[in-house]
C-alpha cells in the first residue's frame, strides 16, 4: 500500500480546470486517445451519495439534507490522473484508492464520487485522499486488511451481491456527509471497521426494495455526474474471454457506453446472466429477474468502480487466460493466416491463368479491383453463412436437366425440383447474388445476369428471353444455350420503366427451358406476388457475426491491416451483417491507415449505420424504459424525436397507456396539448410542419415525466395495445347503429341522436326490454306493438340493448332474459309483418320481404283514408294505412308511414 495522500492534494486541486475539457472530449468521443484518461468532477454525485446515505438512516429529513448537500457541492473532485503521469494511470489510480481506503478516513470536503446505486448495498468507507482533517492519516496496512476481511465475512452473509463487493471493496469509494463520516471514522478507529460495515449493512437493508419515494428522491437528486469517472487505460484485450452482463443503471456511464467499454477491452457482453457469465456489473435498480439469475448461478458481481478497476488491473492479452482459451485463439490465428495464404495463392493462380489464356488482353491487377470483387467467394466454402440454402440451390441446379426431362413432376430431396425457378430473398449484402453466380458456375451453367440496370419491361423480357433450344444471340447480347442459367437480380426493383416485367417474367418461368434464379430483398413485396406460386422460395438470413468475422479477419490480415477482433465485431454489428458494407468500410479505412481502433470503428459504423424499423412495442419500452431519460442517457432531443417518427400515429396512444399520478398530471395535460396539435395537423389546414411539436407534446414530454422501470406504472403488464383503436371502432359502430335507431324513430320523435341515446333509450328500456326480463314471453306481443309504433325492428332492439351501460349493460340484461323467451320473441317478431319507415339504399337490390304493417292499432290512423287509394294486393290484413307502405316500397323504396292522421285524430 502506498500512501499517496501527501502529493495527491495538490494534484486534485490543480486538475479541476483541465478536467473539464477532457470530460467533454470523452462525451463526444472525438479525441484521439484510445483510452482517454480524465480527471473527473463530481458535482451532483456527491449530493446524491450523501443524500442517500442519509436517507437510509432517516428519510424524513431528506429535504434539508439535500439542500445542505447542495451547498457543499462545489468542492469537487478526486482526480487520479494528473497530466504528468499519463503513462501509468491505472496503477496510480489503484494505488490511490487503496491507500485511502486503508486509512478509511472520511474526509468531508472533497467528496469522492461513488456509484450511487451500489452504495446502498455495500457501503464501504472510502476516503478520498485529501489533506483535510485526516483523523487517522497513517493507518497501517494491518488495519486495512483486517477491515476488509471482516467486511468480507459480513458481506458473504448478505448474499451474492455483496460477495463481489467484499473482494474489491477497496476501490469502492464512498463519500459521506460530513458528520456521519466523521462518526464512522471514529468507529472505524475504535473497532477496526468491522462493526461499521455491519451497521451500514443493516441500515441499508431497508432501502433495497425500490419504493416510489426513493425513486422520486433519486430523480430529484439530478444527474449523477455523467462522465464523472475515468475509464482506466487498461491493457489491450484485458477482458478477453470474459463474459459480462450489465444490469441496472450505472452512475456515470450509460448502458451503451459501459457495453462499449467492455467490448473495447475484448470482453463479451451478453443480455441475460447464465452460468457461463463471468461477471455481472450491477447498477442501480437492477432488474429482479437478473438478480435472481445471479443468485442461482452464483455469479460474481461487480460495481461500476470494480468494473473499471478490473480493466485497470487485469493483465492484458492472453496472460490472464487459461490454456484452453489461449490455444483456441492461437488456432484461430493460424486459420486466419492459412486462409489468407490460400487467398494469395489462388489469386496468383488466377492471374497466371488469365495471362496464359488471355494472352494479349490486359490482365486486371487484383489489387486495383474493389475489395468486394477481389475477395468475392471463389468456392462454396468461402460463402459466409446460409450453407444449407446454398447447398439446396446448387443441388437444384445440378438436377435441373433431369427435372426438366421429367416435366418437373418429381419433388426431389428438398421438394425443389418441382420448380423451374427459385426466388432467393434476403437482406442486402449477405451474398445472394454471389451465391447464385457461384452455384451456377459450379453446376456447369453460364450465368446470364439481368439486374436493375437492364430494362426489363414486358416486351424486352419476352423478346430477349426468346430461348431456343439451340444457341441464339438474344437482344442482351449473350448466347443462350441449354447450359445457361438466368439470374434475374433485384426483381423487386422492376419498377415503372419495367412495366409488366414481373408478369412477363412469370410467364417466362412457366415455360422456361433453362433454370432461372430470381433475387429480391423482400419476399412479401406486393410486386412479387405472381412469382410466389411459380418459384421455390429460398430465404437467405443474415450470417452471424462470428461467421463473418473470420473471413473479414483473413482479408484484413492479407491486406496487412491491424484490426482487433472486437473492432471487426463492431463493424459487423453496425452494418447488420452486411458483408459487402463491412468490406467497403475496411477498404476505405485502408486508404488512410493500416489500423483501426475501437473508437474509430465505432464512429465508422455509426456513420454507415442503417436505419432499422422498430415496432411500436419496442419503441414504447425504449421511450419509457429507465434509460432514455436518465441522467446518463446521451440521446439528444432529436434522437428521441426520431423514435416518435418511427410511427407517428401510434406512439401517442402507447404513451397514453402508462402513467403515474403526480407526474401523470403533467404528462396527461401534455398529451392533451399534443392532441390539439394533432387536430391542426390532420384537420382541414394540414399543418404537417407541426409534427415535431406533436412529437414533443404527445410523446417525448409525457414520457420524460413518467419514464421508469415497468413495475411502477401500474402493474407488470401495464404496457398494452392501445385500447383506443378497439374502442374507437366500437364507438363508430354503435354510433352508426344509434343513427339507424334515430332515423327510424324520427317519424315519431323530434330529438337528435344524442337525445335518443340520453332520454329515449332509458325511457324505452322499461317498455321494450324490461318486460322480457320480468314477464317473460307473455310480454312479447306488447313489446312488438311498442316497437312497431316507433318503427323499430329486431336489429334496433339489439342496438338498444347493446347501448346500455352500468346495470343496463347488454351482457347483464341478456343474461337475465331466459333463452326460451328470447327465442319466442325472435320467432314471434319474424313471423309477423312490421311497418318500415324506409328502405336503406343498400337494400334496394333485394326483394323486400316485409310488405306491410298489419297490427298497428292506431286509433288515429283510422282517419287516414284520404290517400288510401290502392290496396296492396298481397296483404290481406290491411285494415288501415298500410297500402301506401306497400306500394311505395315496391316503387321507390322509401316510404313512410303517414302520420297525417294523427293530428286529425287528435283534434
Amino acid at each position, binding site marked *: 500500500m502506498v500512501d499517496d495522500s501527501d502529493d495527491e492534494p495538490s494534484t486534485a486541486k490543480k486538475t479541476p480546470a483541465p478536467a473539464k475539457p477532457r470530460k467533454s472530449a470523452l462525451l463526444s468521443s472525438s479525441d484521439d486517445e484510445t483510452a482517454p484518461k480524465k480527471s473527473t468532477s463530481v458535482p451532483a454525485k456527491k449530493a446524491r451519495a450523501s443524500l442517500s446515505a442519509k436517507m437510509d438512516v432517516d428519510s424524513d429529513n431528506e429535504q434539508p439534507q439535500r439542500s445542505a448537500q447542495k451547498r457543499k457541492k462545489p468542492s469537487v473532485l478526486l482526480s487520479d490522473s494528473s497530466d504528468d503521469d499519463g503513462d501509468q494511470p491505472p496503477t496510480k489510480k489503484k494505488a490511490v484508492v487503496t491507500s485511502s481506503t486503508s486509512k478509511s478516513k472520511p474526509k468531508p470536503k472533497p467528496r469522492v464520487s461513488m456509484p450511487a446505486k451500489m452504495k446502498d448495498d455495500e457501503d464501504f468507507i472510502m476516503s478520498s485522499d485529501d489533506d483535510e482533517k485526516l483523523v487517522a492519516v497513517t493507518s497501517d496496512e494491518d488495519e486495512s486488511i483486517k477491515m476488509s476481511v471482516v467486511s468480507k465475512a459480513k458481506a458473504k452473509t448478505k448474499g451474492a451481491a455483496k460477495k463481489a463487493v467484499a473482494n474489491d471493496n477497496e476501490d469502492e469509494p464512498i463519500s459521506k456527509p460530513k458528520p456521519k463520516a466523521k462518526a464512522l471514522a471514529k468507529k472505524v478507529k475504535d473497532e477496526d471497521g468491522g462493526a461499521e460495515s455491519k451497521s451500514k449493512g443493516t441500515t441499508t437493508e431497508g432501502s433495497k426494495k425500490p419504493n416510489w419515494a426513493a425513486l422520486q428522491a433519486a430523480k430529484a437528486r439530478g444527474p449523477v455526474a455523467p462522465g464523472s469517472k475515468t475509464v482506466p487505460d487498461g491493457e489491450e484485450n484485458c477482458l478477453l474471454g470474459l463474459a459480462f452482463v450489465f444490469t441496472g443503471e450505472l452512475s456515470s456511464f450509460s448502458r451503451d457506453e459501459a457495453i462499449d467499454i467492455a467490448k473495447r477491452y475484448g470482453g463479451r457482453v451478453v443480455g441475460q446472466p447464465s452460468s457461463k457469465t463471468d461477471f455481472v456489473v450491477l447498477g442501480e435498480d437492477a432488474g429482479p429477474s437478473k438478480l435472481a439469475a445471479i443468485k442461482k448461478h452464483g455469479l460474481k458481481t461487480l460495481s461500476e468502480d470494480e468494473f473499471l478497476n478490473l480493466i485497470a488491473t487485469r493483465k492484458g492479452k492472453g496472460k490472464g487466460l487459461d490454456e484452453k482459451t489461449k490455444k483456441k485463439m492461437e488456432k484461430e490465428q493460424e486459420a486466419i493466416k492459412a486462409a489468407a495464404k490460400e487467398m494469395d495463392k489462388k489469386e496468383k493462380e488466377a492471374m497466371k491463368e488469365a495471362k496464359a489464356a488471355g494472352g494479349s488482353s490486359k490482365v486486371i491487377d487484383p489489387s486495383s479491383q474493389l475489395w468486394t470483387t477481389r475477395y468475392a467467394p471463389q468456392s462454396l466454402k468461402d460463402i459466409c453463412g446460409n450453407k444449407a440454402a446454398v447447398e439446396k440451390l446448387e443441388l437444384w441446379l445440378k438436377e435441373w436437366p433431369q427435372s426438366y426431362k421429367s416435366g418437373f413432376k418429381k419433388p426431389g430431396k428438398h421438394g425443389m425440383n418441382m420448380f423451374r425457378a427459385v426466388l432467393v430473398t434476403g437482406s442486402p449484402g449477405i451474398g445472394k447474388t454471389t451465391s447464385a453466380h457461384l452455384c451456377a458456375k459450379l453446376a456447369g451453367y453460364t450465368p446470364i445476369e439481368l439486374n436493375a440496370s437492364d430494362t426489363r419491361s414486358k416486351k424486352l423480357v419476352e423478346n430477349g428471353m426468346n430461348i431456343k433450344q439451340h444457341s441464339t444471340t438474344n437482344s442482351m447480347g449473350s448466347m443462350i444455350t441449354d447450359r445457361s442459367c438466368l439470374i434475374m437480380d433485384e426483381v423487386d426493383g422492376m419498377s415503372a420503366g419495367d412495366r409488366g416485367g414481373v408478369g412477363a417474367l412469370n410467364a417466362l418461368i412457366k415455360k422456361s427451358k433453362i433454370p432461372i434464379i430470381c433475387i429480391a430483398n423482400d419476399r412479401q413485396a406486393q410486386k412479387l406476388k405472381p412469382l410466389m406460386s411459380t418459384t421455390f422460395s429460398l430465404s437467405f438470413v443474415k450470417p452471424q457475426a462470428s461467421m463473418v468475422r473470420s473471413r473479414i479477419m483473413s482479408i484484413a490480415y492479407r491486406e496487412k491491416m491491424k484490426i482487433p477482433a472486437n473492432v471487426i465485431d463492431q463493424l459487423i454489428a453496425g452494418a447488420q451483417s452486411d458483408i459487402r458494407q463491412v468490406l467497403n468500410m475496411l477498404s476505405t479505412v485502408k486508404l488512410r491507415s493500416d489500423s483501426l481502433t475501437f473508437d474509430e470503428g465505432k464512429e465508422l459504423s455509426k456513420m454507415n449505420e442503417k436505419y432499422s424499423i422498430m415496432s411500436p412495442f419496442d419503441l414504447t419500452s425504449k421511450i419509457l424504459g429507465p434509460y432514455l431519460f436518465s441522467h446518463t442517457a446521451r440521446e439528444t432531443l432529436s434522437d428521441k424525436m426520431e423514435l416518435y417518427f418511427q410511427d407517428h400515429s401510434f406512439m401517442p396512444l402507447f404513451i397514453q397507456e402508462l402513467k403515474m399520478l403526480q407526474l401523470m398530471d403533467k404528462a396527461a*395535460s401534455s398529451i392533451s396539448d399534443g392532441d*390539439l396539435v*394533432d387536430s391542426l395537423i390532420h384537420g382541414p389546414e394540414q399543418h404537417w410542419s407541426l409534427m415535431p411539436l406533436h412529437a414533443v407534446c404527445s410523446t417525448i414530454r409525457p414520457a420524460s415525466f413518467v419514464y421508469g422501470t415497468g413495475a411502477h406504472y401500474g402493474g407488470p403488464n401495464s404496457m398494452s395495445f392501445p385500447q383506443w383503436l378497439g374502442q374507437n371502432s366500437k364507438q363508430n359502430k354503435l354510433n352508426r347503429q344509434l343513427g339507424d335507431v334515430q332515423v327510424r324513430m324520427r317519424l*315519431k320523435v323530434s330529438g337528435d*341522436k344524442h337525445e335518443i341515446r340520453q332520454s329515449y333509450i*332509458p325511457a324505452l328500456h322499461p317498455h321494450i326490454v324490461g318486460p322480457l326480463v320480468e314477464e317473460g314471453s307473455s310480454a312479447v306481443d306488447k313489446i312488438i306493438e311498442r316497437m312497431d309504433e316507433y318503427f323499430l325492428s329486431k336489429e334496433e332492439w339489439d342496438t338498444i340493448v347493446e347501448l346500455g351501460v352500468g346495470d343496463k349493460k347488454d351482457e347483464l340484461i341478456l343474461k337475465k332474459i331466459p333463452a326460451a323467451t328470447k327465442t319466442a320473441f325472435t320467432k314471434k317478431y319474424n313471423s309477423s309483418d312490421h311497418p318500415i319507415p324506409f328502405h336503406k339504399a343498400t337494400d334496394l337490390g333485394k326483394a323486400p320481404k316485409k310488405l306491410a304493417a298489419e297490427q298497428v292499432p292506431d286509433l288515429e290512423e283510422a282517419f287516414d283514408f284520404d290517400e288510401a287509394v290502392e290496396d296492396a294486393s298481397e296483404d290481406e290484413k290491411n285494415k288501415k294505412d298500410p297500402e301506401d307502405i306497400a306500394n311505395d316500397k315496391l316503387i321507390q323504396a322509401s316510404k*313512410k308511414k303517414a302520420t297525417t292522421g294523427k293530428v286529425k285524430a287528435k283534434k
Partner: protein
Amino acid sequence: MSLWVDQYRPRSLEDLHYHQELSTRLKSLASSGDFPHMLFYGPSGAGKKTRITCTLRQLFGPGVEKLKIDQRVFLSPSKRKLEINVVQSNFHIEITPSEAGNYDRVVIQELLKEIAQTQQVDLSAKQRFKVVIINEADSLSRDAQAALRRTMEKYMSNMRIILCANSTSRLIAPIKSRCLLMRVAAPSAEDMQTVMQHVSRRVGFDLPPDVASKIIDDSGGNLRKAILCLEALKMQSPDLSGSLTIAKPDWETYCQKVADLIISEQTPARVMEVRQKFYELLSHCIPPTVILKTVADRVVERVDEAIKADVMHWAAVYEVRMRTGSKKIYHLEAWVVKVMSLYKHFFYGMDFD
C-alpha cells in the same frame, strides 16, 4: 302506443303552452308572406323542433306532416360513399349534415343546390319556396358553414333555411347575420308544471303538483326528459303516491359511479380504471361533453368547498380542448388526473407546484 312525449306533442302554434310571445311572432311571420331564414337555438328539450314543425304547418298546412324518409348517397371527394338520411315532405326537407362527419360540406353543397334549383311545382302550394331544416347546425364544420353562406343569399327565392342548434357559439357570424335568431329558452318551472298537468289530463289521471315539481327539479329544464320521466314514474307506481324515486338513466348512474371512483382513491391504477369506464361510456354513444359535465357535477358535489372552483375551472378548460382536439379520451383523462392530483394535494395540505 307511443310514449306520451310523442303522443301529446303540440302540432300547431296555438297548442304551444309557453313562450307565447315567440309563438305569436312565428305566426305573424308565417302569414306575412315574407319568411326569413331562421336559426332556432336553445337547450335540448326546450321545444325547438316542435316549434319548427308548428311553424311549417302554419306555413304549408297539414301536408308537411306527411313525412317520408329517404336515404341519399353522396360521394366524398375521395369517392367514399356517404349515406345521409333525409326526412322530407312535399314542402320541406330535413337533413342532419353531421352524419357525414368531415364531409358535411359535400352534403350541404349538393343537396342545397339541388333543392334550390328546383321550383315548387305544386301550384296549389301556399308558398313559393321550400324549407330546408338543418339539424345540429352547431356541429357543422367551418367549410360547410362557409358553403352555406352564399347559398343562403343566392337561392332565397326558392328556398328558406331553418337552422336548429343548441348554441350559436359555433356558428360563424356571417351565418348568424343572415338568419332571424329565435331563442327557444328552456321552459320555466311553472311552464313545465302547466305542460305536465296538461299531459296528465290528456292521459286521464291526476298529477299531484309536488310530484310534478320533483320531476321538474330533476329534469333541469328539459321538458322531454320531464315527460318521459313522468311516464316512467307512472308506470312504476300507478297511483303516484308514496315515496317516489326518480330513476336516473343508466348512463347518468354510470357517470356518477365514475365520479365516486375518482373521489375515493387517487392512484395511477385508479386512473386506468376510470379510463376504462370512459371508454365504455364513449363507445356507448354518450357524448364526451356530457360525460365531462355529469362527472364534474358529481365530483363538485362531493369535494371540499375549497377546490370546487378549481375542479370546474379545469373541466371548462378541458371541455374546450376536447372540442378542438380529436381524441376525446386524452382530455377526459387529463382532467381526471388533474382532479385527482388537486384532490390529493388538498388532502395532504401541500402544494407540489
